[in-house]
C-alpha cells in the first residue's frame, strides 16, 4: 500500500444522499426507529428506495449504550439491511467517520454499486449515567479496579495540551462558543446556544480543567449516507460528492504511555487519507474541516493532528477567527458535537454528512462563506487511540 499512489484505487466512490434525526436526550424512538428515520431521509435525498441498495454498513459504538448484545443484528432491519450483505463496523468514538470508510471499500471493491451507511447511538437511557458504560472500557486487570472515569483521562489530556502549548482555558472556551453558535443554524441541534467565554468558565467544574460547557452533551440520534459507484452516482444526481481519500489508525491500548499533547494516530490516519486524495499541503488544499470536538480542546488538538495547523498553532489561529464560518479555514461549521450533540457514532457521521451538504452548497444558513471544493471530516475514539479521516470533494 505504502508504495502505491492514488491512481491504483480502481473505482471512484460518491456520496449521493444524507439524512439525520434530531439529536436529543431521551428520544422516545427505539434505536431501530432512529436508524430507519435517518436511513429513510438519506434514501429520499438520493431519490432512491431500499430496493436500489445493494449493501448496508451499520456503525454503532459500544453495544452497552443501547443495552443490546450483537447490536448490528438488532439494528439490521431498522437500517434497511434485510436480505442484503449487512455488516456492522466499529472503532469506538471513531466509528461515525469509519462508517463511510467501510462503505467506501464496499463500493470501491466493485462488490456493491450502492451502499446505505447508517450510524445510530442511544446513550441517554443508560442508568445511572452513560458514564457507567464507560466503566467497562478499561483494561480489566490493570485499570478497571481503580474505578477511572472517562472525564478524568480527558482532563489529563486537556491539562497536558494546555501545558505543552501554553494555552489558557479562555482560549479553549472559544471553541465551545464558536461551535454552539454555529449549531444555532442546524435543524437537528441539541446544544446550540449563544454563550460567552465567561459562561464556559463559570459552568460547573466536572474534573478540572474540564467544565460542563467544555463537553458535548449526552445524546440519542442517528445519521445516514448513501454511497454509490461512479456510474450509479452520475445516474442519480448531477452533483455527486466524491470520496477522495480515507484513512484510519488505531494506536496501542496504553494511553498512559502516550504523549497526550499531540494525536499521532489522527496524523497517521490523515496522512493515509491525504495520500490517497493526492493532497500534499492539507493546510492549503482543504477548504473546510469537521474535526471531532467532543471536548472543546479536542477540536484544536485534532486540527493539529489533521495538519491543518502546526502543533500548538491552532489556539492562536482560533483567536484570530481563522476557524470561523467566515474565516480562512472554517472548522465545525455544522456546530460540531458541542453544538449539534454527541450520539457517538451518529455524531461522527453527522460530520461526514456536513461535508456532503457543504460541498453541494445545501447547508443553508450553515454554508461557509468561501467557495468550497474539498473538506475533511475526522473522528476519534477508544482509549484516546483511534483516528478516522475522510476527505471529500465536489
Amino acid at each position, binding site marked *: 500500500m505504502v508504495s502505491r499512489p492514488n491512481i491504483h484505487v480502481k473505482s471512484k466512490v460518491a456520496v449521493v444522499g444524507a439524512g439525520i434525526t434530531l439529536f436529543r436526550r431521551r428520544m422516545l424512538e427505539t434505536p431501530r426507529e432512529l436508524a430507519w428515520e435517518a436511513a429513510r431521509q438519506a434514501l429520499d435525498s438520493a431519490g432512491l428506495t431500499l430496493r436500489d441498495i445493494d449493501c448496508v454498513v451499520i456503525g454503532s459504538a459500544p453495544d452497552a449504550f443501547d443495552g443490546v448484545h450483537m447490536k448490528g443484528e438488532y439494528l439490521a432491519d431498522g437500517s434497511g439491511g434485510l436480505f442484503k450483505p449487512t455488516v456492522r463496523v466499529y472503532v469506538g468514538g471513531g466509528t461515525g467517520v469509519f462508517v463511510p470508510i467501510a462503505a467506501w471499500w464496499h463500493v470501491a471493491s466493485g462488490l456493491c454499486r450502492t451502499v446505505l451507511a447508517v450510524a445510530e447511538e442511544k446513550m441517554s437511557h443508560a442508568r445511572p449515567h452513560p458514564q457507567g458504560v464507560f466503566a467497562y472500557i478499561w483494561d480489566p486487570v490493570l485499570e478497571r479496579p481503580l474505578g477511572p472515569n472517562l472525564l478524568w483521562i480527558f482532563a489529563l489530556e486537556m491539562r497536558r495540551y494546555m501545558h505543552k502549548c501554553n494555552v489558557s482555558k479562555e482560549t479553549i472556551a472559544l471553541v465551545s462558543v464558536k461551535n454552539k453558535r454555529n449549531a444555532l443554524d442546524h435543524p437537528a441541534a441539541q446544544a446550540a446556544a449563544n454563550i460567552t467565554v465567561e459562561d464556559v468558565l463559570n459552568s460547573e467544574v466536572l474534573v478540572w480543567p474540564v467544565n460542563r460547557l467544555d463537553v458535548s452533551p449526552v445524546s440519542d440520534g442517528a445519521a445516514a449516507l448513501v454511497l454509490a459507484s461512479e456510474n450509479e452516482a452520475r445516474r442519480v444526481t448531477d452533483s455527486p460528492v466524491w470520496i477522495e481519500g480515507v484513512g484510519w489508525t488505531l494506536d*496501542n491500548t496504553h494511553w498512559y504511555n502516550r504523549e497526550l499533547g499531540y494525536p*499521532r494516530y489522527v496524523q497517521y490516519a490523515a496522512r493515509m487519507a491525504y495520500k490517497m486524495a493526492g493532497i500534499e499541503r492539507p493546510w492549503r488544499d482543504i477548504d473546510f474541516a469537521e474535526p471531532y470536538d467532543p471536548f472543546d480542546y479536542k477540536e484544536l488538538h485534532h486540527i493539529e493532528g489533521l495538519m491543518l495547523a502546526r502543533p500548538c498553532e491552532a489556539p492562536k489561529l482560533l483567536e484570530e477567527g481563522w476557524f470561523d464560518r467566515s474565516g480562512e479555514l472554517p472548522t465545525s461549521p455544522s456546530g460540531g458535537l458541542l453544538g449539534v450533540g454527541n450520539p457517538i457514532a451518529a455524531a461522527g457521521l453527522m460530520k461526514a454528512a456536513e461535508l456532503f451538504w457543504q460541498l453541494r452548497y445545501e447547508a443553508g444558513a450553515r454554508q461557509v462563506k468561501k467557495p468550497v471544493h474539498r473538506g475533511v471530516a475526522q473522528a476519534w475514539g477508544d482509549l484516546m487511540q483511534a483516528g478516522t479521516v475522510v476527505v471529500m470533494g465536489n
Partner: protein
Amino acid sequence: MPRAAIVSAGWYGFKPEVGELSFREMMFEAALRAYSAAGVDPRRDVDAFFSCQEDYWEGIAITDEFAPEPIGGVLRPTSTVAGDFIQCLGQAVMLVRTGYFDLVAVESHAKPSDIATIKGVMDMALDPLYLRPLDPPNPHFIGGLMANAFLARTGLGREALAMVAAKNKNAGLSNPRASHAAPVTLGDVLSAKPVVDPLTGYDIAPFSDAAIVMLVASEEAARRLTDTPVWIEGVGWSTESGTGSLAWHQWDSMPSIRMAVDMAKSMAGLSGRPQTFTSFAELEDRYSFMEILSMEEAGIAGPEEAYSMLEAGDTEPSGNYPVNPSGGSLAAGVALEATGGFRVLEAYERLMAMGEELEPGAERALVVSWRGPPTRTAMAVILGV
C-alpha cells in the same frame, strides 16, 4: 478484478478452556504463527488489520481498544467488525479488490471459558422489549424451536439429527482441533435425554476457546509470499432478519444461507449445485439439524436427499462428497465469532494438503456458517487451489 488469496493461517487453542493464556496472548500466538508461516513482518508488510469481535462476549465496552497490539496493528489501519470471521474475511477481500491494499490480516478469537454468565450474555442479544422479559430458561431455546419447525416441515425424524451428530463427533477424532470429538454411536444420541426438545447434548455444539489469524493477499502479493495460495473465489454474507423482529422470521428455513451462497457463487462465476464444482463442504452444524438445513439452503441436497446421503455414508469423510470432514462445530466446538474462521481454516488446510498433489484449479471447497442464535446472518466462502 484483483483476486484475493489466503496465504497463511495461524491458530491457537480450540480447547474447552485455554487456561494458560489470556485472550490477548492467544491473539498474539495465532498472529505470530500466521506471520511466521508467510515470512512477513506485520509492522512493515501488512497494509490493514481486521479483528472480528463483539463487546459482550469480551466483557469490555469498545473492545477494539485491545485489538492492535497482539496482531501488530499499532498505528496502522486496524479496525473491528462486529461479526463473524467470514464477514471480516469479506471486508479483507473488498480491501484487496480496491487495488489499494496488498496484504490484510484477519483475526478473530473467542474465550467463552472466561464468561461466567453465558446465558446472561446471550439473553442480552434478545429484543429488550418483546423477548428478553420472557427470561428463557435455556439459551438454546431458539435452536430447539428451529429444529422442531425444520423437522415438522421436512418430515424427517430425530434419527436424521442423530446421524449428523454421530458422523461429526466421530469425524473429529482425527482432528487435533476437535476437542469435543468422541466415538459416539447412533444409539448414544437417540437414547440421550433432550436438553431442549428435540436436541440432546450430542446435537448441540459446546463452546471452545480459540484464536485464528489469516493473511489475505492480492494475487501479486500471494505469488510473492507462497507457492500454495488458496484463492478466495467467492465470499458472501446476508442478514435476513434483525434480532428485534425475530418472532416474524421463517423458523423452519434460513434464506440468508441461500443468499450468502448465491453471492459467493456469483463472485466466483460459478453456477449449479455446489458438489459439481467443489469436492467437499464445511457447513454450519452448531445444532445437528443445521447441517441438513445448510445442505438444503446451499443447494447441495433437499432434506430427503440429504438423509439418503447420510444413510449411504456419502457425507462421511471418506464418502463421495464429505460434509464436515473436520468434525464441524459438533466436534470442535463453537468459538463465538471465530466459528466461521474455524470452518475456513479446516477447508484451507485440507485444500493446501490437496494442492500439493493436484493441478491448479482442480479442487474447491464450500464453507457455510451462521452467526448463531438469535441472529439470522449467514456467510459462505468458496475456496479453491
